[in-house]
């Protein structure tokens, strides 16, 4: 038992830090620092920079062009990335569809899609939830009917994240209606340029366009875009969700958010002194810091155990997902509370990097203020997406506790 990093790991951290420091474009760093709105090009530019350095996929094995890093190295990279204000990489591409293709896809699919993910050529989005199928995902009804060398896809997906940017969507579709609901599901890769696809924005409570509903009207999909076997898609879908949740602890992101909260609370003034010296407020910060300290070790314990045993993550990732999502919500809530009245203005235009505050807003409306309330509202999603907290508890009850 040793919580210290080895000299090699410390040297590695230095390499990561120096690389990000030298290569992260200033405008992207500025957007992260001030919580401004990202566009597609920001994320893809960063992906291309990482890729040129051979770090396009820090969580992939080497044979697919990944770094082959250890769990601890990945943790260090994530921590440094977040701390430096570099954007996260696109999870739907790198952490979700890619592991499915590596494990269940055929070599043609691997050879075509994986390099394009690495290089930032393709942007992937997810077609899982439907209006009638949220937590009960297996009840999904979007259908794929085999017609010669094509499937014809019809139906509606929803809560699709950033599909307005996407080149491809991985979809769960129904290919059989007899038997158990889970048994008639297939995993299809669909070109977003296909005829018959309509993307409609859903505006979330923070006023942003992050999610969409997607309609499929007789969309033709070549049969070679089926992953694995027909009607086995539920297995692949669960595998993917496990990978998605692995990253849900978001330790690096939480640590950065906590650091920022402390900076803001030191900058904000309450009753003539820094807010962080208000014991009632500071104790709440201390409380969430403790939860995060514990989760960092829990996260590493879980990842190390599966790496040592050479197996996929088990249901224990649900613990990481539940705690990580709660912690980032609590930090966001405290950060909003740190702002006092400055939490109230809703300035949609302030989400752009070149926004200049109206002088009338005065000195008590600092540049870091505009996105904080929206972030609090936005992050309510974290305990809902990727399997709600309640679904995670069902998983723990059933698969770990045997209830």
């Amino acid at each position, binding site marked *: 038992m040793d919580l210290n990093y080895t000299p090699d*790991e410390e040297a590695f951290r230095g390499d990561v830090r120096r690389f990000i420091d030298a290569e992260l474009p200033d405008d992207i760093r500025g957007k992260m620092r001030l919580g401004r709105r990202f566009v597609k090009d920001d994320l893809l530019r960063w992906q291309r920079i990482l890729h040129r350095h051979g770090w396009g996929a820090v969580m992939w094995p080497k044979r697919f062009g990944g770094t082959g890093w250890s769990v601890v190295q990945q943790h260090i990279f994530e921590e440094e990335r977040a701390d430096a204000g570099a954007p996260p990489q696109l999870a739907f591409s790198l952490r979700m569809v890619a592991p499915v293709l590596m494990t269940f896809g055929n070599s043609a699919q691997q050879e075509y899609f994986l390099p394009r993910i690495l290089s930032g050529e393709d942007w992937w989005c997810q077609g899982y939830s439907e209006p009638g199928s949220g937590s009960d995902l297996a009840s999904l009804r979007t259908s794929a009917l085999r017609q010669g060398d094509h499937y014809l896809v019809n139906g509606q997906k929803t809560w699709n994240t950033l599909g307005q940017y996407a080149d491809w969507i991985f979809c769960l579709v129904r290919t059989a209606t007899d038997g158990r609901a889970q048994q008639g599901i297939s995993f299809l890769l669909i070109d977003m340029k296909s005829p018959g696809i309509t993307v409609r924005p859903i505006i979330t409570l923070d006023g942003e366009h992050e999610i969409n509903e997607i309609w499929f009207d007789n969309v033709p999909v070549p049969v070679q875009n089926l992953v694995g076997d027909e009607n086995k898609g539920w297995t692949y879908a669960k595998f993917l969700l496990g990978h998605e949740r692995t990253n849900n602890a978001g330790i690096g992101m939480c640590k950065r958010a906590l650091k920022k909260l402390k900076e803001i609370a030191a900058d904000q003034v309450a009753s003539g002194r820094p807010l962080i010296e208000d014991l009632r407020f500071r104790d709440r910060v201390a409380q969430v810091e403790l*939860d995060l*300290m514990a989760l*960092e070790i829990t996260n590493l314990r879980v990842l190390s155990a599966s790496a040592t045993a050479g197996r996929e993550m088990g249901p224990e990732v649900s613990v990481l997902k539940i705690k990580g999502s709660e912690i980032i919500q609590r930090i966001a809530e405290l950060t909003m509370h740190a702002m006092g009245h400055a939490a109230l203005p809703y300035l949609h235009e302030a989400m752009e990097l070149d926004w200049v505050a109206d002088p009338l807003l005065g000195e008590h409306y600092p540049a870091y203020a505009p996105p904080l309330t929206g972030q609090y509202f936005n992050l309510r999603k974290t305990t809902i997406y990727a399997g709600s907290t309640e679904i995670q508890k069902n998983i723990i*009850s059933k698969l770990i506790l045997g*209830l």
Partner: protein
Amino acid sequence: MDFSYTEEQLALKDTLQRFVARDYGFEHRRALSGSPLGYSADAWRRYAELGLLALPFPEAFGGLGGGGIDVMVVMEIVGQGLLLEPYLSTVVLCGGLIRDAASEAMKSALLPAIAAGRVRIALAAYEAAGRYDLAHVACHAEPHAGGWHLSGRKTVVLDAPSADYLLVSARTGGNVAEAQGISLFLVPRDAARLTLSAYPTQSGGRAADVELREVQVGTDSVIGMPGQALGIIERAVDVGAAALCAEALGIVAALNDATLNYLKTRKQFGVPIGNFQALQHRMADMFIAAEQLRSMAIIAAVHADSRDAAERRRVISGAKAYVGQAARFVGQKAVQLHGAMGVVDALIVSHYFKRLTMIDMSFGDADFHLARFSDMMR
């Protein structure tokens, strides 16, 4: 980074678990708790044979040179088995204090004797008016004929009734609650004019309030620099708090096992009550709390060995606060999920709960430690 136990640690854990399963059943423990001694002298001899009592001492003094994680392994099983022997007092707190601060002569005299199971020592550091503040010392030591006269009162001295010696903090300078001027003395428990008012604790152990009226000790009874003892006492209590985190971990794991088993076997409305989602989610919350508690106990154990006093204190206080809260959560929910069976003395559940509660109340509760962690925020 490495999250595994060594071969030796795994073997130790295995041996202790078998000992608990075979020789320390719940009814046996109940009898021990009610016996005049309050624990098992046989078990104490067994610990000596297994090397537990030598674990954190240097090899030069007959010890095994173990660190915070080794102590964690033992304390986890102390928790799991609700063991009553004065391991924390004698080996972790007082043994650690003597190891870190006593003269070579005192180390040579006491550490091998502790390791052999011949000597038990209790820490008399808290006073009733000082709550959890170790610097609140009204007990005083006056120079007297080549030694000292100690006078004052110490409160809730854990394991004092069975101890051969007490380590007593007393003022040789400064005013009450001042950090400077505190000295630490080794005092035979049967010294003249030292009176014990002994009682059982809520979790089945033993403790005493101690009164000293001009108790005479020699100059060689002083541990560490006279007037400078607060730092070494605080260090020992930090390490003790880390050990309590590990004990809580062992209890929480055992309590969760017991509760899960109850959910699977107890039937109401014609089905095991574990079929109900409200109870499943509560049990899932308890599982999550146990995982987080384990991580914090590891963090505390690793920092118990830290040479950076401020960082050790900050992190262990954070851990003790967190563990206190998690232990309270799991303890209360376990009682609740057992229904009326949770509130009877006949089942081990209530005993786990009481020990978890007393762990929180010992050496500073969750509020005390959260405040300290918060005060030291970086």
